[in-house]
């Protein structure tokens, strides 16, 4: 933590991330209006005291929808990172430690998933599973775990040859105990960095799906969907598209700066650079 605070970029990232988290947690209390309250007579209203960022095509308050959109983005981002960490790390550790048939089976699956371009596979899966937050999480998890499994496997392959692992094997420790108690703590740092950098990209992927109309559906707001709604009216009412673009850009910048800071702080070779 002290190392992280030494990185200027990491601190900026941390501030942004904490702010977004706070908005997602407490924002609904602060939201000026109900996010799904429509008022057709007041559609595309310019910013005023009641609607600080104006309203959309159904007269819904943009600011309130951005706040609820933060909840959606973070729910998807954090869920996918957790799921892919659990699945990817387990699969990667088993493949790397056991070798043989288990390794071939797991890495064969990984190779097949990685043969598809990420965005295309996510679109395909989202289309099959149908719209909604839960299916977006499922689709993105399916796309994301192989990368983590591959990284974990390569880390485990290095650790397996270390004396402490050989000693544990000789002492008769169970495979589960060796993986969980001995190897995992030694490979946790790079995995943590990977996960923190991943959140930003997952939030971006969720927004992309929603932007294409394959993600979170109305009336639940998502930043990607709000940009899609705002693009056709950019000339007359730019507030919707521009404000949601700013919010999503800032959020992902925050997560990426935090991830970079974390990487520099955890990697002793990069210190002092």
């Amino acid at each position, binding site marked *: 933590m002290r190392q992280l605070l030494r990185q200027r970029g990491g601190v900026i990232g941390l501030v942004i991330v904490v702010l977004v988290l706070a908005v997602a947690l407490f924002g609904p209390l602060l939201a000026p209006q109900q996010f799904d309250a429509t008022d057709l007579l007041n559609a595309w209203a310019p910013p005023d005291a009641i609607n600080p960022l104006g309203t959309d095509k159904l007269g819904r308050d943009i600011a309130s929808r951005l706040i609820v959109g933060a909840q959606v983005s973070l729910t998807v981002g954090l869920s996918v990172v957790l799921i892919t960490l659990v699945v990817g790390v387990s699969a990667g550790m088993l493949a790397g430690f056991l070798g043989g048939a288990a390794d071939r089976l797991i890495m064969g699956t990984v190779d097949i998933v990685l043969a598809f*371009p*990420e965005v*295309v596979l996510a679109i*395909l899966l989202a289309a099959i599973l149908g719209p909604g937050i839960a299916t977006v999480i499922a689709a993105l998890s399916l796309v994301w775990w192989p990368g983590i499994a591959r990284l974990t496997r390569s880390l485990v392959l290095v650790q397996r040859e270390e004396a402490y692992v050989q000693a544990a094997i000789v002492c008769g420790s169970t495979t589960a105990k060796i993986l969980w108690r001995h190897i995992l703590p030694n490979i946790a740092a790079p995995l943590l960095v990977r996960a923190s950098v991943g959140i930003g990209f997952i939030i971006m992927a969720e927004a*992309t799906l929603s932007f294409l109309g394959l993600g979170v559906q109305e009336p639940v707001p998502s930043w990607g969907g709000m940009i899609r709604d705002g693009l056709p009216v950019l000339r007359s009412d730019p507030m919707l598209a521009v404000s949601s673009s700013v919010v999503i850009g800032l959020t992902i910048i925050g997560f*990426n700066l935090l991830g970079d800071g974390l990487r520099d702080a955890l990697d002793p070779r990069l210190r002092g650079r």
Partner: protein
Amino acid sequence: MLAFILRRIASLIPVLAVALLVTFAAIHALPGDPVQVMLSDHSADKEMAARLRAEYGLDRPLPAQFVAYLGEIASGRFGLSFRYVHQPVADVLRDGLAISPLLAVAALAMALLIGIPAGVYAAIRRNRWQDTLLILLLVAGLSIPNFAVATFLVYALSVKLAALPVAGWGTWRQAILPVLVLAIPAGAYLARLTRTFMLEVLGQDFIRTARAKGLGPRLVIWRHAFRNTLLPLATSAGVIFGGLLSHTVVVETIFNIPGLGRLAIDSIFARDYPVAMAVVLLFVLFYAGINLLVDLFYLVIDPRVREGMGA
């Protein structure tokens, strides 16, 4: 060398075969009955439905449909489109086929032209304000989703300044914004990689030797240092090209460009499974082809890889 290429292609076959099977299963798992969509107004016409089902082979069991599909791929027709009834998928794809790769190539060229000099410059000015400013710009370029970048650029350049067309396809002016939107994150990523690789090389002994010999800074940086970053950069350029290709889906949707990516989205929404499937397969093939090219580039550029192969 030829043996290596053949081995490399052979190793692709099982992956491609399973990818084909997965895509087939996935597309057939998509919700909705395409025959009902095709019939639209005549949905009560049982006879017509049966005839369409027979023409498209949808009345046969799935394994038989899969075998028939393999034949369709071999013949290059990729089956019949659901949306453009009776038309082979290949005809539907033909017009858009070149657009997505063209966009991706143009974007990669732009990203290389901007990203590499920016990365080298940041490495030379390491830890000074120019470096810090560039790093901040690069994080922003990498972080802001391409459709958000597109929103800003369209708003600033097309709506406010009226300098460029908002969308469409056909003239070179209409291609500027889509290529730029694709190139920004790719260029930022390349610049970051170049900076990292350059910093690594610049810290090595042979650079100090070159400087001590009295060589000028330009010679040391481009001839000695930059050359050694080419190999890792080439690998990354391959990965980036794959990413660019799949992001054409988004950019073509934003700018209303009739390429493969938009066709994929349109056909998924229109339940035109044969077209969607062909596009996904083409993307997988492009992707595999790029990785193959990168491996071949290794052979050409690095004598160590070439020699290691013979052993």
